[in-house]
């Protein structure tokens, strides 16, 4: 597997990385959680992607100081994370596991955890109410957590992570188990946090929703970094995989005949109902020539879309 780096560089003030990992490794007995991860995560919203067992949760646990690295170094906001109180004032973590204090109300749960950050009772309560409100839990906040649905429990976990206005939010699979409405609420929240200047690192299996949230990804597989950067930039670097495009046209055969003649086109596949699948080695050249070609052939092109600029496709190429 090729490691690909297409990091986006931003303004100098914002480019101070929030997470820097060098040769990071952590294992559980003989099982490798992380093998050799070197990655720099800049400010902003970053998605952490990988299949089950890739090391995403291990990486998150290392970032929030639950675990110590077996080797290598890791800094988060400039701090070594393990049991670091100074970091925890600026960090919020929403864990993956469905575990709450079931006997406590949502409000009491968030409030007490905020109080541990040093806030007074009154202020902690205000913050708790505000955070739960952002996650649309105001109506349920005075009920015990034990009576919450799975989605509500997930949202409470996120609420406790944001209530103290952290500089960095790390959320481990925050969209898992949520119905579409709740997912929308969480995604909007994460976007809102990003707009307010909070950096967010979020892992998810729901790749298209992660893409809707951010185009900056860190792809991990088998405990190592596969790629990082904007998805499209990463895709461009994968030169050995021809780009796939889906085209629908009124005259698909005519269009197909013309496309096949292009040197950089590797294959054209005709499907029913006017659909063509085209593979090209040079996407830029194709884009430059296609419009003129389609007009010349009077093919009646209805749509043109990329078949593999998605995160899923990129990930698939990288892993396989």
């Amino acid at each position: 597997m090729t490691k690909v780096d297409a990091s986006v560089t931003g303004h100098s003030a914002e480019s101070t990385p929030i997470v820097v990992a060098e040769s990071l490794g952590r294992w559980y007995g003989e099982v490798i959680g992380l093998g050799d991860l070197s990655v720099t995560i800049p400010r902003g919203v970053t998605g952490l992607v990988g299949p089950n067992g890739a090391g995403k949760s291990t990486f998150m646990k290392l970032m929030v100081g639950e675990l110590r690295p077996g080797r290598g170094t890791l800094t988060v906001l400039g701090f070594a994370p393990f049991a670091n109180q100074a970091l925890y004032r600026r960090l919020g973590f929403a864990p993956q596991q469905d575990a709450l204090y079931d006997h406590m109300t949502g409000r009491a749960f968030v409030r007490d955890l905020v109080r541990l950050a040093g806030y007074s009772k009154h202020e902690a309560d205000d913050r708790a109410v505000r955070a739960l409100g952002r996650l649309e839990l105001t109506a349920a906040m005075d009920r015990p957590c034990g009576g919450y649905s799975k989605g509500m429990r997930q949202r409470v976990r996120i609420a406790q992570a944001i209530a103290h206005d952290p500089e960095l939010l790390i959320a481990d699979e925050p969209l898992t188990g949520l119905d579409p409405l709740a997912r929308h609420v969480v995604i909007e929240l994460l976007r809102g946090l990003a707009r307010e200047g909070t950096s967010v690192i979020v892992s998810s299996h729901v790749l298209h929703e992660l893409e809707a949230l951010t185009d900056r990804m860190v792809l991990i597989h088998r405990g190592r970094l596969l790629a990082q950067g904007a998805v499209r930039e990463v895709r461009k670097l994968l030169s050995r995989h021809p780009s796939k495009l889906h085209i629908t046209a009124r005259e698909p055969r005519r269009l197909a005949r013309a496309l096949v003649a292009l040197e950089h086109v590797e294959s054209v596949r005709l499907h029913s109902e006017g659909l063509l699948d085209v593979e090209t080695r040079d996407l830029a050249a194709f884009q430059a020539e296609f419009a003129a070609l389609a007009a010349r052939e009077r093919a009646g092109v209805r749509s043109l879309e990329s078949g593999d600029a998605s995160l899923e496709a990129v990930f698939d190429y990288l892993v396989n």
Partner: protein
Amino acid sequence: MLVHFLRSAALLARMHLVELLSSKRLLFAVLLAALPPVLALLVANFAPERASFGPGMIHAQASLLLLLQVVVPLGSLLVASGLIADEVEGRTITYLFTRATPRAAVLIGRVAAVLVLLVPLFALSAWATALAAAQRPGTTYPEAVQSMILAAAAGALVYSLIGAVLGVLFRRALVVALAYAFAIEGFIANVPGSTARLAVQYWLRSLAIDSEVEPWSKMSELSTMVALVDPDVAAVRLALIAVGVIVFGVAMVRRRQYVLTS
């Protein structure tokens, strides 16, 4: 920093106290604590008349054989071993350890909550046992009652701390705690010679029992036990054990990593 530590510990103590009050572990400890006085009451009312078995002896037997040797260790370890271990098993430890709160405050705060409940509980049990035994006509020994109350309270303190620290170190803390209290201590405390001094039970007995005076001097069980030391010495030793255990526990909780299963 100290203020923040104490404030965090107090808050965590309050949080855990509320949780404890509705827990099954505490309920079991309360039932255990009720056992010696109930049995003492039964014996006081239904035992055949024997000159050598007055209220003092009933209290002594119930306190030594039941309260000090079984009820206090079992109840304290049952409640305290879950302090950290339950949080790890329930996977809620993440919330506590990712706060701007010293890890030591998590342990100290929760231990404080347990001690606030258990120390008075078992002291009350010792007192209630004496009260129940006093239903039988005969001589009572107020000094023996006082020393047993103190020993029960001290036992609750020390065993709770041991249970809490075992909970820091082991996932199956309760199993380790029970094996320690009943298998290891049960064996060591009765080995002749200075080996017995390795057991908490030995120091508790020394705190509670003055084998020169009644009713202890009449108890046949004591003749087979290892020779005890002065109560003052025992009190100091128990205090040292308590301090040593909690310092060790604090050092461990600050360093320990907890791998939570999904």
